[in-house]
């Protein structure tokens, strides 16, 4: 009985982190930020005639700025305190060079707990807005996570349906490597090179529109012919591969192809593929291959190796 009373009293005392009410930002979190963080992380202000800028370009005195983070990184991931430096950095050892606050006392365990709970519960700011923010301060941080050169995949990904997972699994079971071009994208990279079992052609057909990059090195006829279904293929590696008549014809269907690697590839009866319909083609690698196209093409052909000559170089 006595124990229960103590438990109830301690629950009442720790009202801020009560198990039932959500953490209130203004009542519980803001005082912690004010006391420990605002000194360095707030809007520029004048001190002894000099303008003090926020440290690390990070302001914590406004809702919008907390959500923005600094120029490089977000500091708050609602629902995930572990991935939020706003919480995580306060829990480091006092000797750690990244610990926050860097000087003075660290947050108490109870204060850390409040931050933790507030972020886990979704980081609700209530009606708090904080200090005013200039519009230029809100310019989004430079996004390095998605380079511009890959915007092409983004647009393409929107037009694609998600690949059939059973088909993908079937291919992977036969040793193929299937990967999404980037996170959650329906566009796929497919490599059949490591396959040690028979490849299921119908599975290959099912995901053929999703395949953007493909490695079909050393594959043979029925599989190579299935290339003709891969209307979105942009990069194809057929290096060292023997191509039958049908598979040579299939190449002409790949209207989206940009890069084609035919180095060391051999063609049945030296039949030449018709690459003229491939208007997007930029470069064909054809070292030691049977390809006998002239260099007078709208795309580039690499046919010779630029290697150091064996003759000893003389100064």
């Amino acid at each position, binding site marked *: 009985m006595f124990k229960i009373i103590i438990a109830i009293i301690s629950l009442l005392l720790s009202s801020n982190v009560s198990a039932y009410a959500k953490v209130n930002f203004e009542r519980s979190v803001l005082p912690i930020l004010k006391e420990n963080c605002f000194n360095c992380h707030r809007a520029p202000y004048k001190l002894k005639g000099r303008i003090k800028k926020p440290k690390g370009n990070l302001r914590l005195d406004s809702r919008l700025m907390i959500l923005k983070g600094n120029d*490089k*990184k*977000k500091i708050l991931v609602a629902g995930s305190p*572990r*991935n939020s*430096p706003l919480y*995580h*950095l306060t*829990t*480091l*050892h006092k*000797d*750690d060079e*990244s610990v926050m606050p860097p000087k003075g006392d660290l947050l108490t365990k109870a204060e850390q707990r409040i931050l933790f709970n507030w972020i886990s519960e979704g980081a609700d700011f209530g009606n708090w807005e904080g200090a005013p923010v200039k519009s230029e301060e809100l310019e989004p941080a*430079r996004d*390095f*996570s*998605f*380079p511009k*050169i*890959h915007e092409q*995949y983004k647009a393409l990904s929107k037009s694609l349906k998600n*690949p059939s*997972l*059973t088909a*993908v*699994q079937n291919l992977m079971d036969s*040793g193929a*490597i*299937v*990967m*999404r*071009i*980037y*996170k959650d*994208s329906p566009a*796929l*990279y497919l*490599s059949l*090179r*490591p396959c*040690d079992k028979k490849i299921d052609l119908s599975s290959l057909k099912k995901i053929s529109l999703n395949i953007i990059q493909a490695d079909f090195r050393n594959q043979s006829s029925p599989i190579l012919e299935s290339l003709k279904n891969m209307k979105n293929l942009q990069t194809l*590696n057929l*290096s060292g591969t023997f191509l039958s008549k049908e598979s040579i014809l299939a190449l002409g269907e790949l209207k989206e192809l940009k*890069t084609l*690697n035919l*180095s060391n590839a051999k063609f049945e009866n030296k039949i030449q593929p018709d690459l003229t319909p491939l208007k997007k083609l930029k*470069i064909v*690698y054809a*070292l030691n291959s049977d390809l006998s196209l002239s260099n007078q093409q709208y795309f580039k052909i*690499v046919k*010779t*190796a*630029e*290697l*150091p*000559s*064996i003759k000893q*170089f003389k*100064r």
Partner: protein
Amino acid sequence: MLNDSSSTRLRFIQNMARATLGLSASFIPAYAKEKNHIPHLAKAHAGSAKHVIYLYMSGGMSHIDTFDMRPENKTIQGPVAPIRTSADGIRISEYLPYTAKQMHHVSIINSMRSTQGVHEKGNYFMHTSYTARGTISHPSLGTWINHFCPAINSTLPQSVVVGGDHTINLNPGFFEAKNAPMPMVTPSSGILAVKGNPNISQSRKKARLEKLQKMNATFMKQNDMKKIKSYDDIYREALKVMSSRDLLAFDINKENPTLRQQYGSTPFGDACMLARRLVEYDTRFIEIDLGGWDSHFENHDEVEENCATLDKGLAALLGDLHSRGLLDETLVVLATEFGRTSKINSRKGRDHQPAAFTTLLAGGGVKGGNIYGKKNNDCDDVIENEVSIPDFNATIGYALGLPQEEIIISPSGRPFTFADKGNPISDLF
């Protein structure tokens, strides 16, 4: 006979293993292996590169005698002249005649700046993006790439290191041991000890392995820890390598002897040729070390001699990768721990200079025939577009599409990211 209760020796070993392998909590977000999961080629975005060949010039390569020359100032330049290259307006050292023909593939970064002026610490900083400290061991580049990039060849190691300081470039740091790259001693002899004992038949080998698994089973069950599992994974991976049909990748004797000569027929050249083979077999990261750049004495003789080795290897590598269509997807990096002073010392040598040096990037989506950043006239300070070591490594990560903002919490609870606080130089792409 060999069960726990009767065998005190086994019990002792078990306890030892428990104690030494540690009781660290699992912290690595394992790739989901459940059915119907499609991994990502790169975790963050489709990188412009699938592979990295990292050529490390250990000892500190002299930038002024190689890629950032000052011919107008004879007192600091010494007896070496620049030559024209295949890239408009770019001139490099006459010590590198073959590389000069490949410069249209290369971006020169002339504004590198490190904070570490001692070999080991500089090397550590280059390889980990963090400065060395006593309290934590940071993983090497090869380890990070192993951790983030799912395998595109399931039977070969993803990350291979030839030579160099293995305490740094093989260091798994706070990751599991299995993430460490595989070391290779001499490229010409292939990987050692993968054949197995010829006197033991396949069936006997299988029986032995089964027995081993049986013996391990109880221990594994009682000590269900990531780190212990990791050691088991290493065995498994080794067996996979031993039975891989792609082992041919390591056999450079399969290459045309003329090509080998073009690569220089040196251990470095052989390693470069091996690296190209490994890229063809879908290895993600290959590091090759070329030492001997610490030219405190007779700098120009030493640099010239070293350049002869580097020149053929690097030029052949770039040319060979390009003609096989591999340079688009392979980032070739030339890195070193720091540069060397412009002032020539009394022993005709050059000393350490971390404040300004030069590195190269080529292929993997990087612009060719390009110079980034600038040093001052005396070639001893950066005056434009400074690139820190973390920035440089972040650029490698950017090319590969690594999730650079992803925070990895070490077992000791500290946050780490791939290139610390580095920002990629996106202008290079």
